[in-house]
Structures are given as structure tokens and as C-alpha cells.
């Protein structure tokens, strides 16, 4: 009861402060390519089983109105501001989209929560948290700030951020994670064939399964790279560190060769038939690769 009163109070307060309510909808194909552009505000996007895009919520400041346009195949939702070059007003919205649509969200600042979307989801954001309540088919995040934590079993994940840590769990097939400054942590499944992890300043920690004929590359300029691997391994291995040690703890590495050329230490060899490749390069830090132990 107190919560209801508080919520009602907040709504009345925001309406008194000039907030405007919005409630619009438009038909859209189940597999539409949906574009959502929002400068500022917190947004929830949910997938549903209706061929409709619906938006409800509040606008304030110079956030004037919602423009819902485009065709059924390519609907477009945009918050229109009084001064598009310098928007000064929030749009706090709940948006329903066809669950199987391809969703493309562009936002400058604000938190974003996405759930129930099963198609490909891409997000470009300058600041704010991006979270998923359920797994889309693929996730592409292009962020400027903030840490990234993804715990959804998406088939493929592509995360690029300028600043912050990246922590991705449950990737099925392929993953790319790149940050300028921050740690990268990836937990894969047994079928992860393509992996690329890169940081300029931070550690890279990879745990989990390696797919058949993998193509894995790890680059850490100033930081350690630690790979704890699971499953059958079938790859040519190349591990390099300029200033640091290279430690390889998996038995059965064929043609094992360790070279030291100046400061550059490289360990190469072959696991299984060497059908894929695992390459790790670290400038200032250690490379540690071992077998992940499963305890029943």
C-alpha cells in the first residue's frame, strides 16, 4: 500500500513538473528490423508475440514527443527533442516489440533493460547500464563507458567498449570482446569456435570450452592472459610474452618449442590434429594456459 502511494505520488509529482505521458503503437512484422533512438532516459524493451510496437511512458524537459514511423518491415521509434543538437529531457519508456525482431537501439545516456527478444540485438550507447533479462540470438554492444556484464547464452556476442571491464558468460558460438582499459572475462561453452579478446591495459581471463577447429586470439598489452580450457583441444598453439612468463600446463602438446628471441618468449606446439589455432600475445604480463578441472 505504501509503495502504491509512493508510486502515485511520484507520478503526480512528475506530471506536476511537466512530464508528458505517451501511449502509442504501430503494426510491425514479426521479423521486422526495429530501430529505437533515444537521447536520454531509462528504457525497458520487451519482446512479445504480437506484430505490434507499443510504447508507453513519460517525457520531460525538451523531450517533446515520440515519432513512430517507417514500414511494417522497418519501423522506427525516435524521441524528438526541442533542440536535437543539445537534448535536455528524459524519456523513460517501456517499449514492446515483436519478440523475433532484429532490434537496433541507439542511445546517448540512460539505462537499458532488454528481455524477451529472441532475434539479433545491437546497442550503441555512450553511457549507462545495458542489461538483458533473457538471451537474444546474438548481441552486439558498442559502448563508450561502463562495465559490461552479460550472463545470457547468446549464440554470438560482440562487445566493444572504450572504458570498463567486460564480463561475458555463456557464449555459445562466437565472441569478440574489446576494451581500451579494463579486464576481459569470458566464460564459454564447449562449442565456442571463434573468440577474440583484447585489452590495452588489463587482464584477460578465459574459462570454458573450446569448439572444434577453433580460431581464438587473445591480446593483452599490459596485463596477464589466463586461459583455463575445457573439452577436446584440436589446435595449433602459439603463446607469446614480451615482458613476462609463458606457462603452459596442458599435457599432450606435440612439437613443443620454446624460443627466446631477445626479450620475446614464445611457446608453440600442437594439440590434437591442430585443425584450429589458439594465439595469445601479451606485451607486459604473463601468459598462463591450463586445463580446467571438472570436479564431480
Amino acid at each position, binding site marked *: 500500500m505504501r509503495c502504491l502511494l509512493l508510486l502515485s505520488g511520484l507520478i503526480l509529482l512528475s506530471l506536476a513538473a511537466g512530464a508528458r505521458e505517451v501511449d502509442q503503437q504501430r503494426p510491425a512484422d514479426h521479423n521486422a528490423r526495429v530501430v529505437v533512438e533515444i537521447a536520454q532516459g531509462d528504457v525497458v524493451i520487451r519482446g512479445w508475440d504480437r506484430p505490434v510496437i507499443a510504447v508507453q511512458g513519460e517525457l520531460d524537459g525538451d523531450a517533446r514527443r515520440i515519432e513512430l514511423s517507417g514500414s511494417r518491415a522497418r519501423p522506427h521509434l525516435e524521441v524528438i527533442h526541442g533542440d536535437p543538437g543539445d537534448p535536455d529531457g528524459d524519456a523513460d519508456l517501456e517499449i514492446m516489440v515483436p519478440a523475433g525482431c532484429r532490434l537496433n537501439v541507439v542511445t546517448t*545516456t540512460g539505462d537499458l533493460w532488454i528481455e524477451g527478444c529472441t532475434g539479433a540485438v545491437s546497442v550503441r550507447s555512450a553511457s549507462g547500464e545495458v542489461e538483458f533479462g533473457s538471451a537474444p540470438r546474438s548481441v552486439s554492444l558498442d559502448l*563508450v563507458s561502463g562495465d559490461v556484464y552479460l550472463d545470457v547464452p547468446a549464440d554470438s556476442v560482440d562487445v566493444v567498449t*572504450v*572504458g570498463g571491464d567486460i564480463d561475458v558468460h555463456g557464449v555459445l558460438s562466437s565472441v569478440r570482446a574489446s576494451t581500451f582499459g579494463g579486464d576481459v572475462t569470458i566464460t564459454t561453452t564447449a562449442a565456442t569456435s571463434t573468440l577474440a579478446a583484447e585489452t590495452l591495459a588489463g*587482464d584477460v581471463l578465459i574459462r570454458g570450452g573450446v569448439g572444434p577447429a577453433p580460431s581464438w586470439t587473445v591480446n593483452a598489452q599490459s596485463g*596477464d592472459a589466463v586461459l583455463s580450457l575445457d573439452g577436446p583441444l584440436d589446435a595449433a598453439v602459439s603463446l607469446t610474452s614480451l615482458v613476462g612468463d609463458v606457462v603452459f600446463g596442458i599435457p599432450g602438446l606435440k612439437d613443443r*618449442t620454446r624460443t*627466446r628471441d631477445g626479450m620475446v618468449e614464445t611457446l608453440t606446439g600442437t594439440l590434437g590434429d591442430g585443425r584450429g589455432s589458439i594465439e595469445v600475445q601479451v*606485451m607486459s604480463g604473463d601468459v598462463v594456459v591450463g586445463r580446467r*578441472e571438472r570436479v564431480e
Partner: protein
Amino acid sequence: MSQHHDPIQDATARLAREVPPDRDLWPGIAARLDRPEASAPADNVVRPTFRPRQWGWMAAAAVLTLLVLVPSLRQSEQPTDVAALDRDYATVRDQVMTLVEARCQQLPSRACAPLLDGLATLDRSASGLSTALSALPTDSPERVALLARYRSTLDRAQDLRTRVARL
């Protein structure tokens, strides 16, 4: 129900808490330059060695490689020396800074600060690589890897410029 025990990760986590990693590249290289042979690996170390009669083949291969590579290097316009990379990085960095200053007047501070942090990370990377490359002899084997990283840092700076411009 199975669970995972990860001894390497455990050890690394402990190490990370006890000894915070140095995020700058140059101090590590400088320390290693002071003791280049200090930590030789224990197993199967193969140091590149050259026998006299290999030199003839190597010279021929080098000439052939130069004949093939020099035209393509010119075409790709990739900076190959430290001064050129320093110059290119400074140019891109100034462009990024100009864009950041303009955008930060409109963006909230929580969006602006990471841009400056990202630029600072790139600056440290470029500075460390430039210092290391300047300190190393021109024929040192580390140069190839360091030059590649410097070019990668330059690529990142160009990427940041693109990102800031479209904010």
C-alpha cells in the same frame, strides 16, 4: 551437479590481490632490459642461432623479400618507424581531444569521463611503446612486436575518433 575447480584462476586471483599489475608497458620493459637473461625458461629453450653458411641463403631471401615487400609497404602507407608513428599518433590524438572537448559540453559527465580515460589509456600505451622502441637497438628482435602494437594503438585512437564523432 558438477562444479569447476580452477587452480590457475585461483592462483592468478591471489596474485592479482597481492601484487597489483602494472598497467604501463615501459617499466616492465625497462626492468627486463636491465636483466635481459635473468629469467630463462626452464624447458626446451631454443634460441635463434645462425650458422655461417646460412647467411648466404638468408641474404638472398632478404633481398627477395625486400623486392616484394617494399612496393606494397609504400602503397599501404603504414608508418614503419617510431618517429612517423609518434607523429601520426599525435595528430590523431589532437583530433580526438578536439572532438572530446566539443562533445563534453553536451554530454553528461558520466559519458564524458570514460572518453578522457580512454584517451589517457591510449596515451600511456603510445608513450610506453615509443619509449621502449627508442631505447631498444634498431636491430633488436622486440621491435617487430612493439611496432605492431604501436600501430594497433594508433588504430585504436582512430577508432576512438570515429566513436566520438558519431556521439
